[in-house]
Each structure stands twice: as structure tokens, then as C-alpha cells.
């Protein structure tokens, strides 16, 4: 008997009393009608609590804000699908600071390690827990680029913000590689004192964009 067969046969034997389970009661909150202004306020509050830096801007100010956040970076990486308009003030296509990660021409790990920052968009955000979800599509890139550089600048279009986790899950393609980010990397392993910044990016700048 293969290990699989044996384990499944042990389970069947263990369940010979044929336990029946009640249906799953889903009485918890699954929808919310929080107005947009409050959603933004809630998300900002949660992210700041995690020690992320947050800007809330109109779409007209986005390129300038990105330029401001990337001001100190001597180099930064962008995913191939990034909206070029966003970079109009930070780095034109030929800017020496800019490194573009493109399928077929990906940046190596040492190259990512020597890059100061990364700029990505995001797929969906959950205001109540201060969580931003990246799904690896073109304007977010593969997981390594938003992990290795020490400074992550992340754009959150207002239309992608929901209040509750149950509202966010239907918007996620679960089979894509997903990363849920709630603040910069942190640990509470020493005396349960939260310290920001261990292995993931130590600096997280979030730009919430109205009208996007």
C-alpha cells in the first residue's frame, strides 16, 4: 500500500462513526457601506499604526509624489507594466536610476540587492486591517522585486480599497502568487516589543490616489 493509500485508509477508519458537521454559519460581517472618505481615513490610521508613511493625493499629484518619495534612492526598480505617466517626474525611460524588471530580462538577485527602492501598484487593500495585497500582475511585478530592495513605494488607487477582508477576497485571483502586506517588516520576538524592519523592506511608503 502506498503512503497515500495507507493514510487515507487510516482516516476512513478513524471516521467510522461518520461524524456529521453542521453547516458553516456565516453571520459575521461580509459587506459594509462605509463612505469613501472614511475608508481612506481608516486605512491611513491602520497603516500609520504599523509605522508606514502615507500620502493621500489626487491623481494629478501622483507623479510628483512618487518623485518626492524616490528622491533619496540612488536606484530603483519598476515592474514592466508600470504606468509610465506615474514616472514622468521621477525618472524618464532613460534615467540611470531606473531599472525595469521585464519577463525574459529579469534582474538578478545581486542586482536587486544593490537597488535602493522599488515602485509598484497594488491589487486590493483592506482598510480595517491596514492590508495591501500585491498579486504579481504587470504593474506589481514578480514577488522578488518588492521584497529584496529595502524601500517599497506602493501606490493604492482609491477604487481598490474595501473595508472588510470578506469584501476583498472576491477581488483576489487566489491562484496568483499573492503577498498581503500590513506595514513594513517587523518582529516582536524579543520581549514582545514590536521592532520595525527585519528582512523585508524596512521602509514602506504608501501613496493613496484619489480619482484612480
Amino acid at each position, binding site marked *: 500500500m502506498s503512503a497515500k493509500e495507507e*493514510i487515507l485508509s487510516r482516516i*476512513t477508519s478513524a471516521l467510522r462513526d461518520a461524524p456529521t458537521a453542521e453547516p458553516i454559519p456565516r453571520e459575521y460581517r461580509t459587506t459594509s457601506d462605509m463612505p469613501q472618505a472614511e475608508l481612506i481615513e481608516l486605512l491611513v490610521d491602520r497603516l500609520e499604526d504599523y509605522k508606514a508613511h502615507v500620502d493621500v493625493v489626487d491623481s494629478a499629484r501622483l507623479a510628483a509624489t512618487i518623485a518626492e518619495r524616490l528622491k533619496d534612492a540612488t536606484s530603483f526598480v519598476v515592474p514592466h507594466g508600470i504606468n509610465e505617466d506615474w514616472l514622468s517626474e521621477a525618472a524618464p525611460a532613460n534615467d540611470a536610476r531606473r531599472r525595469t524588471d521585464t519577463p525574459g530580462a529579469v534582474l538578478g538577485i545581486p542586482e536587486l*540587492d544593490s537597488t535602493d527602492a522599488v515602485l509598484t501598484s497594488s491589487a486590493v487593500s483592506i482598510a480595517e*486591517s491596514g492590508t495591501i495585497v500585491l498579486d504579481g500582475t504587470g504593474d506589481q511585478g514578480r514577488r522578488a522585486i518588492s521584497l529584496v530592495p529595502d524601500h517599497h513605494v506602493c501606490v493604492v488607487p482609491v477604487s481598490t480599497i474595501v473595508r472588510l477582508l470578506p469584501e476583498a477576497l472576491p477581488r483576489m485571483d487566489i491562484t*496568483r502568487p499573492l*503577498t498581503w502586506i500590513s506595514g513594513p517588516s517587523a518582529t516582536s520576538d*524579543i520581549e*514582545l516589543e514590536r521592532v520595525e524592519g527585519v528582512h*523585508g523592506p524596512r521602509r514602506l511608503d504608501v501613496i493613496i490616489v484619489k480619482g484612480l
Partner: protein
Amino acid sequence: MSGVFMGMPSLPVFGDGNLHIDEPFPAAAHRELGNTQMRANLRHATHTIRDKRLKVVGELPDWEELRDAGAATKNQVMANLPALLEEFEKNFTARGGIIHWARDADEANRIVSDLIKEQETTEVVKVKSMATQEIGLNEYLEEQGISAFETDLAELIVQLGHDKPSHILVPAIHKNRTEVRDIFLAEMPNVDPNLTDEPRLLAMAAREHLRRKFLSAKVAVSGANFALADSGTLAVVESEGNGRMCLTLPETLITVMGIEKLLPAKEDLEVFMQLLPRSSTGERMNPYTSLWTGVTEGDGPQNVHLVMLDNGRTAALADKYGRTALNCIRCSACMNVCPVYERTGGHAYGSTYPGPIGAILSPLLTGIKSEENSSLPYASSLCGACYDACPVKINIPEILVHLRGEDVDSRRETKKLPSQMDLMMKGAQWAFSSGKNLGLLEKGLPLGKLAAGREKKIKRLPGIAAGWTQSRDIPAPPAQSFRDWWKKDHQPAAATTEQEK
């Protein structure tokens, strides 16, 4: 597969590995209680995390509804386990993942070690996994000439300190900052000799120490918090980014997971990802959660394996009064509220799983007759704090009592003569079966008073009851029983009340 069901229920097959306590809990607890530094660290830590948990749980108006959904989901999983496992395997495999099944610790260790050797490397990075600790993977790999580097800060502290974890979420909870600094100074190559004990600097030292390892590792070994049957997705919940490093950068990823970790569908995450972070670290959400489904071309490991582990889980499942222990999502809330854990610490429980959940899970996985694990169900005052805190509503006190019963039964089987306990219980049965019997017995009360002497305390009871008086005195019994007093004092009064009606 169907060919193997002969209608003959097989006997449960128990698990092995780091699940055993080496000495009975009372002795281990006694020793650990002497470590005052550890107790002070623990008290500080468990109280901090308790308060944080209460605060973030209180924020959610639907916490109880989430717990109900969580408990029901896990019960569903256990009732439908074979079908869900098949469904998960089909989906995970369809997306390029490779599944291995392991009956026990040994088999799992061998599978992982062979997979690592195939990659021709002698170093792997690891992200916190209870399952690999349970099977003793690191020790096994070491024998095979493979070094496994723990990357979670707390695990790193434990590994560098040649210590054992004492908490499932914060394995180094028993060490304070100064002790951590001393371990780093002694064990970390190239560490700054002027390192202070500020947690931020200690975390930075760990970052430096592990960074090269992450960037160059060819193989990572991980655990998993959840597995979604309907999509074949795995999830790892973490804080530091060491998980993301392990799950993203190496070419080969080997995950070891107990078969009970399944959830039926994607929507179940909406319940568990609210329950878990708030119950464990007391945060609204943990900093990072990674989800992956088999292999994604051009993103992350291209050689993705999963080892599905039994190691006694099917035996726990066979115990219909104990099987809900498998619903555990390893949040650690039960240990943070447990008055026994707070004083003895995690080491006293011996097994990988300490605290209230360990007191039921370890003996369920190994069988109550195994070594000293039969003492674990007694490591509780049955106060019920664990049940109230548990996000999936595991009735730990009820299972503790059930396992105590199992233990007593298994002892009786091995002895021909009835034990003193049996005789006492028989006696009690006789006494309480009729008022007359009890009355007869109570006539002996003045004798007890005599035995207590002038101090009005009984200091030593005979036989097994001596255990009771080992650490406490019994006040002398009253000269008169409650029943006698009631009879004398109340009969006439009761009659009066009757007349007044």
C-alpha cells in the same frame, strides 16, 4: 484505493518524534518553577500579549460569529478529510506542485532529505514550521550532513543558544533581551562586539547574519498555516519577511504540513485570516502573508514540493471526544492565558506543543500510554481560560477530562488488583447512593476531629490521599455534619413556614 477497505477498522497508528515529555509533568514543572528569571520573562511576555489580544479582539463587533464560523469550518474539514485531501492534491498537482505523503516522522524526514540531496546542496534556509520541529527534521538533516538555518528571529535565538523552543509563536519567549544579546555575542560569527541589548539592534544583527544565506540559498523548507482544497493554494503567515525570502528566492521549495491544515475554500480565509493574527500576536493583521499555488512561471521557486504528514493525526482523529484538538490553528492564545503555562513555561511540557493545546494534542498524537505523556492531561486546573480564548472554540478542559479518564482506564487494564483510587470511588458510590449510607458515614466525623487534634488540622492522610496533603493541610472536620445540623435546626422552622401559607 477502494480495494483496501475490507470493512475491518484498523487500530490507530500513533505518531513519533518530538512529541514526548522525558519526565512526568509534575517533576519537569517543579524544576522549571525554580527558574525565576524565566518566570519573570514569561509573566511579562504573556501579559503583554494578552492585553494586546483583548484590545484588537474587542474592536471586532462580530468576533463571536467569526469563532462560530471557524469552529464549524474545521469540523467540516475533519468530517470530509479524505475528499478534501484528494481535491487539494488534484489542484496543487495540476499547477505543477509535487505531493509526497508521509505516514510518520521518519518517512517525512527521509523524503525531505532526499529532495534536498537531489539539488546537490548541503545548506537550506527554514521558515518557522511546527511540523518540522515535531518530526525532528533539523537533527535528521544534520546527521545527513545538511545544515538547516532557522530564519525566524526567535527560532534563530533558540538555535544559536542550543536551546529548545518554549512557545509555539514566540519560541524564545523565555529569554529576555540581555540573554539574547549574550547568545548573539557568543554564537554569531562577525557580530559587532559592541552590540547592545536594544531589540532594534538585535533584529538588525539577525538581518545581517541571515541576508547572505537568503540571497544564495538553493533550497528552502517551510511549514504552512493553511491549504485551500478548492484551488490547491498554500499560505504562510509571518512578520519579519524571512518567510517571503524563503518562499520567493530559492529555486526549490519544500513544505511540510500536517494533513489537518486544510480549509475547504478560498472564502474560508476571510474567517481564519481575521481569527489568526488577532489571536496570536494581537495584531489586526500580521505584516506579511504569502499565498502560492503550485508553480508560477517566472515568479518564485520552480521546483515546488509538499509533504503531507500523518504522524499520529489519524489516531487523534479516531478519538471522537478528542478529535477537535486537530482544529487547532496554532495561534498560541491558549498558552498566553493559561495560569499553569505562565508559571511553568513551555519546556515543562516536553513536546513541541506546549501549554493547554499541547496537554491534549501530544497524548492524542502519541497515545495516552506513551511514555510520560499520560501526565500531560493533568497539567491544568481546568479553569477554562483556554476555551474562552480559543478562536476555533476547542473545548480543551473537556478533552483534558476525557484523556484523564482514558489514562485511568489504561492503567486499570495493566493492573489486576483494584487500585486505592478504585476502592475510594467504590466507597463514594456506596456513600452517596443513599441518604442512610451517608448518614452512617457521617457518624464518624467526630473521629476525624479527634484525628486533627488541637491544631484543628489534618496534616497527613494515608495511602494515595497522602498526595493531597503533601502540600496542604486539611482543616479538621466539624463535630456535626451539615445534614445533622439541618435536621435539628430547620425541621421545626420548615414546619412553621408550612403553617403560615
